[in-house]
């Protein structure tokens, strides 16, 4: 039997939910507005992954080491075509594809998600510095809206930036043999989960540290190892065993794994579903921890 009390509680609950969503929508909008109204910042953040793509993917093309060399064994006059196909086999065995550029491009998608999440999470430090956060806290907006809006802002920015990096990579010559709508959806699904988890983590760290220098230091301390101890540049199988151990639990590797499988057809050592489950747990766990702890941090 339902008492009138529980009914009124339900009304309060739906009210809270709609207030939460309204606050979330307005606050996310505010952050996104600041972003698309300042396109230079957007462009600057694209420079790094694109330069890396150009540098490591094209200029120092690892693939060239295996193919197109003038190397030959004296006495055995191996035809160039045989050498090339030998190189390609080696490439495929190592990277799973003959195009190192494409291999790296997927890594760069994760890279941009990682760094954009970091920058967006940091913006809450500025909000606190300039008193804007205090202003928000004097309004009756549910505290959760403030935190989730920051996370959402990080996720949306990350995905948008990833789309741009992908387009640039395609223009620069990424292999498109396997790419279709479905594979793009799968890839961005994985990037969404990665972005959600990382943004949650950075919002939480930002709320904890009260100045941006220390936040920046912590962020780099996290981001660079996360990136280099992942399969972004090299396949895990080619790493020393201790690094393999790290890389194989690193969520960045999981997102890249999914992306490479979907976009390039590189076989994954684990079923994609398993990778997705891992990333989902990562995202949900960090999201929950961040929202709960931020609640406390926002209080005083």
């Amino acid at each position, binding site marked *: 039997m339902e008492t009138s009390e529980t009914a009124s509680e339900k009304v309060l609950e739906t009210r809270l939910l709609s*207030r939460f969503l*309204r*606050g979330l*929508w*307005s*606050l996310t909008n*505010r952050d996104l*507005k*600041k972003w698309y*109204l*300042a396109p230079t910042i957007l462009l600057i953040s694209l420079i790094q992954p694109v330069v890396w793509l150009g540098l490591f993917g094209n200029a120092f093309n690892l693939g060239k080491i295996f193919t197109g060399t003038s190397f030959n064994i004296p006495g055995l006059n191996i035809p160039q075509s045989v050498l090339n196909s030998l190189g390609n086999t080696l490439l495929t065995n190592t990277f799973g594809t003959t195009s190192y550029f494409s291999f790296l491009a997927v890594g760069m998608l994760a890279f941009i998600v990682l760094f954009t999440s970091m920058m967006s999470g940091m913006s809450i*430090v*500025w909000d606190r*510095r*300039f*008193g*804007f956060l*205090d*202003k*928000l*806290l*004097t*309004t*009756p*907006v549910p505290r959760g809206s403030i935190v989730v809006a920051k996370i959402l802002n990080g996720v949306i920015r990350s995905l948008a930036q990833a789309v741009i990096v992908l387009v640039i990579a395609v223009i620069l010559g990424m292999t498109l043999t396997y790419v279709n709508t479905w594979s793009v959806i799968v890839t961005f699904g994985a990037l969404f989960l990665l972005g959600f988890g990382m943004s949650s983590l950075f919002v939480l760290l930002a709320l904890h540290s009260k*100045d*941006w220098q220390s936040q920046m230091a912590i962020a780099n301390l996290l981001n660079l190892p996360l990136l280099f101890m992942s399969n972004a540049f090299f396949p895990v199988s080619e790493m020393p065993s201790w690094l393999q151990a790290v890389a194989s639990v690193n969520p960045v590797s999981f997102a890249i794994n999914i992306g490479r499988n979907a976009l390039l057809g590189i076989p994954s050592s684990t079923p994609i579903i398993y990778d997705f489950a891992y990333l989902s747990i990562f995202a949900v766990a960090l999201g929950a921890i961040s929202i709960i702890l931020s609640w406390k941090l926002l*209080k*005083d």
Partner: protein
Amino acid sequence: MKEKVISVRKLSKFFGKGFVAVDAISFDVFTGEIFGFLGPNGAGKTTTIKVLTTLLSPSSGDATIFGYSVKNDAAKVRASVGVVPQEFTADEDLTGFDNALLMADLYGIPRKAAKQRIAELMDLVELSSAAKRKVSTYSGGMRRRLELAIGLVNHPKVLFLDEPTLGLDVQTRTAVWNYIKKLKNDYKMTLFMTTHYLEEADSLCDRVAIIDHGKIIKIDSPSDLKASIGGDIIQLAINDKNTDLSNLLKKVKGIKTVKKISDEYRIKVKAAETIAPKLITLISSKGYQVTKLSMTKPTLDEVYLEYTGRSLREEEASAGDMMAQRRTMRLSRS
């Protein structure tokens, strides 16, 4: 009896281990009045406002606003108050209008009503023409007025103003004073403001609490505060220098003391402007003429000096610099 809007009981706020920023203060603010906190830098004014607007939780004691406790019913308190903070907190990258609209959203005001309301508020603070400009292009006075408009966006029944005219020029300050009076008179709003400008407390506030080192030293209306340290002084002289009218003058109602110093009478009264005409009539009725008359009102500064043993004037002189300093500090800390 007027209804209590804010009720503060033994409220304290400590920072760190032993630092007491607000020390067991108690007071009530009644509906429709302008209540002022007057005190020097670091007295605990902003801390009190932050506790009352739920930004900080009290270390001990409690305060209620419309009966809602800042400790236990924070959400209800937030929904019913407006805040104009000491520092500029609007988002520099957005327009004035967008800032106000965002706040309206956070208060859950329907979009259509919000837009109309914001247009009215921008009109009130004379920012209509600048509403669509980025806040980063605003002058200090414009920012202060924008903060005021934003503080009013939820049509609060009680508004907290933290040093609303700090760092403003005389003209803008007068304009802000007029808005504040308008809020009280036209909208019957209850206002809680802090200031360290004596004129401000004097001309705006119905009641003033003098606060120093986190303690309230005295609460009263500006005129009673001034009266409490002795009242106004009327100095007059008459054409007949040889007669002493002291005893006659002492009989007039409202006169506290009369002293004849050489040719002049130094008379302490409660309110000079009502007593002086009476004195002139009395003196003329006895056939004498007033040849000289001056009135001196004690200032809140003297009151302040009396109760805290320090003068506010010196501190006030550098308030503009302080303000500039504080903003740079804020920027460099970040």
